[in-house]
């Protein structure tokens, strides 16, 4: 597997043993759990028997893909602590909202998927649109993650890209194909632990080297005088005051409301883990537990990027387009570079295992969600409605293999046409913000009609694509989309999400008001006001999800003040 090409570091036999043990463990778990995966409920929803802790940790681990780990560490090196917004305001409120407001409807409706909920609430057209777009985007994102991971392994360790892609992918296909969501979730919990134990050392030793938090801030100021990399909100008054070229409206409303709420509450990749919980209380607690850990993730992702700014030579890492013989490493390599800086034999293997585990948990999340949506919302809905449960499990297993193969194809496509990565990132965001408006109005407003839901979703998605195309054709149009000629790409993404979410909501409301709503008897279990939510009044306060959601929310506010 090792090539004699140029590389940042090499692994010892202990490191290789650690990596091999990891592969044996995840495959062993897959083979072991196959015997417990017999019905569709087992394969696609892990038997709906997960505890709050297991569901909550896998909910978070499915999101911790390789792009998430290495990409945001790189973003922290590039933009400073502003990148932490994607972990805090861009995640915590949405996760708590999912737990307290939306989970009861997903859980009580007994849906298998988010498109499945759209079918129950709005009918087949909305489900078909959502399922096809989700399936398409999921395998593409999985392939992009795969390529990103293989590229880092090549740059850092000199491993062959194709071999990295095939070995990792076949492993994921085997353990998800054998044990379904049960195996994916079990392995995600294992991977979550390994990600933390492998990456945490970088932050701890980095702080030792930098002289603690204050020492790190002082070094960053000394390295980059006049630039502010260490404040989260105080530089967001204007697009020109921060390295990201963004301001607070985009962060609060674009990221915090539409992108974040859209992702964390309607992306089936993460919602699937929560609806596999054993009861409603566990399902509500799972996102709260996930949110508590999500708040801590910047310690292993953002902090290494900041430490890179403090301890690496000034300008050591550059953008992908500026790589040269003088500057051979990009921002995205900051995490492995910091690993190389601090970790010797053994610890290096653990760190690399953490990166591989991050990739695999993200990919398994994509693939298991894809298999469920394909089997239930496309194959069963459109091609074969009344087959046996065993038949659908078999289709799910084959879909897992198919999803992995398509992902591999995407990875090779990205390898040859790297700009596809930018386009697909944008494509993915087209469907997130409008879907949130559709699902939220469907859950909270009885008057929302099937026609309103479908046309709102379509209008929101099309308007997002239209805005993207407008700026591509005429870059000056960014001043209309993001309200400032000084806005940069990230701000455009946030504002595009904001406008498309609002357009979706507006069209949904208008169309609903002129079309016939469903009778209330058909909305039981789906909509607020028509659904009896079980009371938690008999539980002690400390056992209620709302109490812990309040604790997490308070900690979130305190963090914003500390890093203001």
């Amino acid at each position, binding site marked *: 597997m090792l090539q004699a090409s140029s590389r940042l570091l090499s692994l010892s036999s202990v490191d290789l043993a650690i990596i091999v043990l990891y592969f044996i463990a995840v495959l062993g778990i897959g083979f072991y759990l196959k015997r417990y995966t017999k019905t569709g409920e087992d394969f696609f929803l892990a038997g709906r028997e997960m505890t709050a802790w297991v569901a909550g940790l896998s909910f978070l681990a499915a999101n911790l893909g390789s792009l998430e780990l290495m990409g945001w560490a790189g973003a922290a090196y590039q933009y400073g602590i502003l990148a932490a917004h994607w972990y805090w305001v861009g995640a915590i409120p949405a996760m708590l909202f999912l737990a307290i407001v939306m989970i009861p409807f997903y859980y009580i409706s007994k849906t298998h998927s988010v498109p499945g909920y759209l079918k129950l609430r709005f009918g087949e057209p909305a489900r078909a649109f959502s399922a096809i777009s989700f399936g398409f985007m999921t395998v593409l994102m999985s392939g992009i993650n795969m390529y990103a991971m293989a590229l880092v392994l090549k740059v850092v360790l000199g491993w062959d890209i194709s071999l990295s892609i095939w070995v990792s992918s076949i492993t994921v296909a085997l353990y998800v194909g054998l044990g379904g969501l049960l195996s994916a979730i079990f392995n995600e919990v*294992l991977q979550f632990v390994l990600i933390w134990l492998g990456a945490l050392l970088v932050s701890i030793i980095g702080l030792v080297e930098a002289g603690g938090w204050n020492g790190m801030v002082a070094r960053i100021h000394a390295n980059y005088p006049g630039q502010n990399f260490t404040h989260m909100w105080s530089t967001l008054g204007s697009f020109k005051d921060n390295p990201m070229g963004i301001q607070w409206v985009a962060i609060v409303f674009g990221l915090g409301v539409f992108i974040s709420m859209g992702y964390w509450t309607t992306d089936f990749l993460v919602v699937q883990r929560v609806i596999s919980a054993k009861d409603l209380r566990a399902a509500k607690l799972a996102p709260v537990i996930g949110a508590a850990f999500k708040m801590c993730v910047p310690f292993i992702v953002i902090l290494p990027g900041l430490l890179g700014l403090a301890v690496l030579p000034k300008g050591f890492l550059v953008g992908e387009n500026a790589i040269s013989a003088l500057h051979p490493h990009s921002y995205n390599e900051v995490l492995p570079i910091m690993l190389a800086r601090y970790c*010797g034999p*053994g610890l290096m*293997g653990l760190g690399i295992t953490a990166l591989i585990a991050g990739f695999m948990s993200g990919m398994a999340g994509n693939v298991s969600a894809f298999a469920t949506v394909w089997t239930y919302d496309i194959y069963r809905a459109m091609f074969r409605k009344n087959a046996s449960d065993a038949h659908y499990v078999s289709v799910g297993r084959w879909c897992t293999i198919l999803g992995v193969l398509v992902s591999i194809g995407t990875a090779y496509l990205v390898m040859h046409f790297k700009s596809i990565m930018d386009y697909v990132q944008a494509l993915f965001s087209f469907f997130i913000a409008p879907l949130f408006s559709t699902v939220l109005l469907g859950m909270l407003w009885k008057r929302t009609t099937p026609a309103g839901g479908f046309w709102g979703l379509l209008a929101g998605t099309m308007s997002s694509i239209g805005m993207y195309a407008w700026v591509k054709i005429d870059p000056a149009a960014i001043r209309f989309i993001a309200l400032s000629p000084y806005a940069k790409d990230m701000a455009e993404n946030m504002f595009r999400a904001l406008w498309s979410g609002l357009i979706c909501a507006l069209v949904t409301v208008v169309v609903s008001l002129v079309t016939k709503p469903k009778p209330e008897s058909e909305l039981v279990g789906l909509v607020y006001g028509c659904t009896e939510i079980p009371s938690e009044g008999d539980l002690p306060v400390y056992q209620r999800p709302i109490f812990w959601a309040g604790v997490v929310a308070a900690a979130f506010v305190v963090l914003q003040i500390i890093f203001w």
Partner: protein
Amino acid sequence: MQRSGMISIWFFIGALLLAYGVLICGSGVYELVAPSAAAAARAEANLHWDGVDGLHVAIWWGALLIVMGAFYTFKFAPRKGK
């Protein structure tokens, strides 16, 4: 989750951490005994921070993994009649 007869995920995690702890702690001790060999292995990482060598991170991090791994392995070990 725990179906009848199913081994807990925490047992698998504990066993893996225990094995990792032994390997990492062992390599840390080896590095202490034969520092030149270990240093040569790291020489390629030209960004290496020399200060980390005096911290003996592999030993205490490996020991931490052993403690955590042993706890989870024994607490969640499959037992007869359970």
